[in-house]
């Protein structure tokens, strides 16, 4: 210490320190510092330890729980789980206590340490070294140096900012330019950008007319999804056991609850399991697989399919075909479009359907649009994609809960209407724009049956809700309702005069379409999940055991025949002139009169 400090006897502190106090303070400081250091080391170690092994996420416990699932009655295993669980909980709460107590203790030690250090340091004065040049001789130099460093710092920051800015790229910007190029006037993408596997400009030949649609079986429940077949000479008799009128029977390689669709000489269906999603094309004369195409490498597709009910499966939605394209939707939200020869045109993911049983609503092709119903737990949507390139045309939000029903197309005299049924609405949309045309609140529960349209009236049903008949016109209104023996799975079948409702336990009821009067009800022995189809004045209905019940679409119940297939069936057959195609649990059947 310089001499002159002593001469300047200015003491800002209190009385001179007694040595004993200083000594005590020193000792306390050392002890507190050591304790604090030990404690903080312990706490750090503790933190690292609990971070690597959270007692509440014990691996051992999880393993034991898995074992228990296999041997649910193992009492010893249960005891073991209970003991381990108790241990884990104790460890967790002890850990909480340790952290709390530890931090309080650490705080106390630090406080003591600080106080002692303060006492020690309060005895030391910070007086200037008067031997030194006052005022800092290098005042100007310091300033100039500071200026230089500031310039360097500022320039450096600016350069880093610019460099980062130039390097950084935003998915958003890329997407923006992409969608701007693709569709200059259209709205921005509804979901993911389509994946241009093939040229998006597929020569879009004109879409098929109504006549062509009616000559084929283009989607779930046939043309317009109404369950009415226009084919003539449909066979009425067959037997799977004796192979009578069974033209061919082939196994379908992958399971699926979707129904076959037909265009020309080709029959399409899809199958999926946890790993793959495949579209199959069969030759409908021989039953041979003409091509199969796996849907994979889709941007945004989940690595694993969502957890769904096995009874729905990963391929519940039926395909849609229009002679140019065949489109498939899967439980993963994947949508794929192929040409008639199996070449993938486009594929995209619409987001994993938030559906606790699994997505089941089938899409429908209308003119140049693929209409995908997407009513999920988290809200309803109707997604329209351009069938030629998968680009989004519109997306309509629907104020509905989840549903499994498929859309139908109601060709009213005024306009085509896309009708959807869900809780709580039956609603119709302009298929070209998605504009809502009307809605009637009449559904509830988890809606499965699809609606039906005939002669200016829309019919919708759900178990525990009602069978509702809605008369279209200036204003869509409920004309009548019926509350008993309602369908929960099977879709409605409507003609100008009659409505057929099939309860899932096998009770078929027939109503007068305009008044709602119930003509008859008949109990069939087995449950029914398939939907009835009208062909040549007869109603064809397959029960879950594969027995096709054929009865007249008439005011009284007049059974015609029952044909056994010998295999469980949950899908809707496809009807073509002289032919019926049935997808049973694992086989596909071609049925028709053998030309002998």
């Amino acid at each position, binding site marked *: 210490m310089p001499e002159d400090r002593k001469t*300047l006897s200015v003491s*800002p502190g209190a009385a001179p320190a007694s040595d004993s106090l200083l000594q005590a303070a020193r000792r306390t400081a050392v002890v507190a510092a050591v304790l604090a250091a030990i404690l903080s080391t312990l706490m750090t170690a503790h933190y690292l330890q609990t971070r690597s092994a959270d007692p509440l996420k014990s691996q051992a416990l999880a393993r034991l729980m898995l074992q228990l699932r296999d041997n649910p009655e193992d009492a010893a295993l249960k005891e073991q789980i209970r003991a381990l669980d108790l241990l884990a909980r104790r460890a967790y709460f002890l850990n909480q206590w340790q952290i709390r107590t530890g*931090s309080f203790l650490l*705080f106390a030690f630090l406080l003591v340490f*600080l106080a002692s250090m*303060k006492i020690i*340091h309060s005895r030391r004065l910070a*007086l*200037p070294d*008067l*031997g030194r040049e*006052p*005022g800092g*001789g290098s*005042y*100007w130099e310091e300033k100039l140096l500071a*200026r230089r*460093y*500031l310039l360097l*710092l500022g320039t450096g*920051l600016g350069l880093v*900012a*610019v460099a*980062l800015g130039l390097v*950084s790229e*935003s*998915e*958003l*910007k890329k*997407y923006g330019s992409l969608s701007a190029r693709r569709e200059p006037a259209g709205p*921005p993408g*509804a979901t*993911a950008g389509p994946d241009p596997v093939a040229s998006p400009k597929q020569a879009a030949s004109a879409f098929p007319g109504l006549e062509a649609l009616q000559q084929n079986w283009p989607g779930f429940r046939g043309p317009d999804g109404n369950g009415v077949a226009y084919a003539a000479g449909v066979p009425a008799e067959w037997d799977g056991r004796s192979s009578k009128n069974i033209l061919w029977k082939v196994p379908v390689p992958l399971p699926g609850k979707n129904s076959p669709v037909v265009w020309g000489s080709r029959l399409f269906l899809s199958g999926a399991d946890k790993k793959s999603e495949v579209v199959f094309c069969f030759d409908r004369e021989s039953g041979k697989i003409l091509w199969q195409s796996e849907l994979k490498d889709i*941007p*945004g597709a989940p*690595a694993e399919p969502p*957890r769904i*009910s*096995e*009874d*729905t499966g990963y391929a519940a939605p039926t395909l849609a075909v229009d002679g140019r394209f065949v489109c498939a939707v899967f439980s993963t939200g994947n949508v794929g479009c192929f040409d008639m020869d199996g070449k993938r045109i486009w594929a995209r993911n619409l987001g*994993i359907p*938030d559906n606790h*049983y699994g997505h*089941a609503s089938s899409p429908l092709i209308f003119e140049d649009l693929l209409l995908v119903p997407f009513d*999920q*737990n988290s*809200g309803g*949507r109707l997604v329209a994609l351009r069938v030629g390139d998968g680009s989004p045309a519109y997306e309509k*939000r629907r104020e509905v809960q989840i549903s*499994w029903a498929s859309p139908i197309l109601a060709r009213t005299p005024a306009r085509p209407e896309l009708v959807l049924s869900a809780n709580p609405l039956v609603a119709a949309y302009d298929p070209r724009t998605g504009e809502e045309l009307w809605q009637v609140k009449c559904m509830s*529960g*988890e809606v499965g*049956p699809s609606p039906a349209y005939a002669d200016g009236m829309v019919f919708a049903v759900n*178990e525990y809700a009602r069978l509702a008949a809605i008369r279209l016109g200036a204003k869509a209104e409920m004309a009548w309702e019926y509350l008993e023996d309602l369908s*929960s*799975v099977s879709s409605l079948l409507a003609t100008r005069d009659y409505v057929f409702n099939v309860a899932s*336990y096998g009770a078929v009821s027939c109503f007068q379409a305009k008044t709602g009067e119930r003509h008859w009800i008949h109990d069939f022995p087995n*449950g029914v*999940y398939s939907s009835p189809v009208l062909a040549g004045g007869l109603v064809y209905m397959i029960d879950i055991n594969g027995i096709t019940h054929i009865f007249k679409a008439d005011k009284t119940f007049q059974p015609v025949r029952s044909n056994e297939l010998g295999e469980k069936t949950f899908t809707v057959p496809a009807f073509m002139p002289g032919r019926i195609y049935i997808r049973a649990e694992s086989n596909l059947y071609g049925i028709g009169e053998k030309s002998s």
Partner: protein
Amino acid sequence: MLKGYSYMFPSARTGAALAILCWLGGAWAAWAQIKERFPKPDFQSGYIRPDLQTPAPRSMAWEMADIAVLAAALAAATYLAHRTRSRRSIFLLMIFSLLYFGFFREGCVCPVGSVQNVFLALFTPGYAVPFTVIAFFLLPLAFALLFGRTFCAAVCPLGMMQDVVILKPVRIPGRLADILGAIPYIYLTLTLLFAATGATFLTCRLDPFVGFFRFGATFPLVLFGISMLVLGTVVARPYCRFLCPYGVLLDWMSKLSWRHVKITPGECNNCRLCEDSCPFGAIRTPVLESPPPVGRMEVRRLAMQFLLLPAVVLAAGWAGAELHLVLARMHPVVSLAEEVLAHDAGKSGEVSDPVKAYRASGKPLAELLSEADALQGRFRTGGWLAGGFLGLAFAWKRIHLLVRRKSPWYDLDRGACFSCGRCFSYCPYEKVRLGLIPPDAVPEPPENNNLNGKNHA
């Protein structure tokens, strides 16, 4: 009505039977939704449903009390610094503030953080800022404009936390202090940008001390806090001087303050006793050394600096705007949109929780993208402003360094001074004022300095 179901089809099984079957099967489904799957029971035994307890938040009365205590503490700090000039009293008030605002009130909202609420309110129409926050924002600034940074002297719990750990402060060389002093500007700019765009409250996220008040914080923050305190034993109040964003505003206000504390109650005779008394480097030693003569060069240089100012501001603004894509990622909506697109493009394998939540929300992508796009636009504008502001701050600081301050006495850098009162007791005139020494005992300045004369300010 239900016949034996050996098989469950997807659709339409209403109600309990299916739910239970699925449940037993272990099918683990979607997000929680309100669904009346099971009817409300009709109790026969006279059972009464318990009430759901909803404990109330801290009452409004406390918020009012906080404002009152803040105002009182500021007034007291000002009085103690200006009138009583007693470091001991200021220290006691400081301990009180630390206990009340720190450990009792546990931190939020503090004036330092309130800047963000204020900016969020100014730029977001939907956000109504509570009066408490306004009071916490304005009161310390108003006091600083009138009386200097008395808030920092004895009210701010973050400052107090560091003030009590000062043990052996070292002097930071002038150029280093000048450069470190630029950090708060950067921190403030980022804080304001993120607050105004609604991205995040950066200052709150990185607050090193609030964890001590609550006895709980994430481990990295505790580490940050501890290292700040350890550093604080030798570098006095490092957060206040070299990080605090609110300190920048207080600095401005205090520079222009109407009345500011002085080292000496009367005059300065350059006795040099206070020279090392300030641990914060806020005491400016006299500059008597004749500067190099002002030549044409210097004048030209100064003129150039002023002429270049707009260019610097523009360049910095451009740099800031260039950075907007990076900055915008701090906003959850923008990062979500990018994540969703990246996921769609098949770039990320695992579906992250935000993407899952987004997919479940059913919100159309177009809506999300247009929101994110608008936000990027805001960040672009914000980037221009932020960059420009930083450019201005740097350029102005450099001009300021070029200006030749010549001061013959020891005085305080009003912007940096915390009015903590440490230096008062070093001044012999203060001792005279307190009657501790007679006026003629004031020491003469040492021989070897050329700072003779007295300042009769």
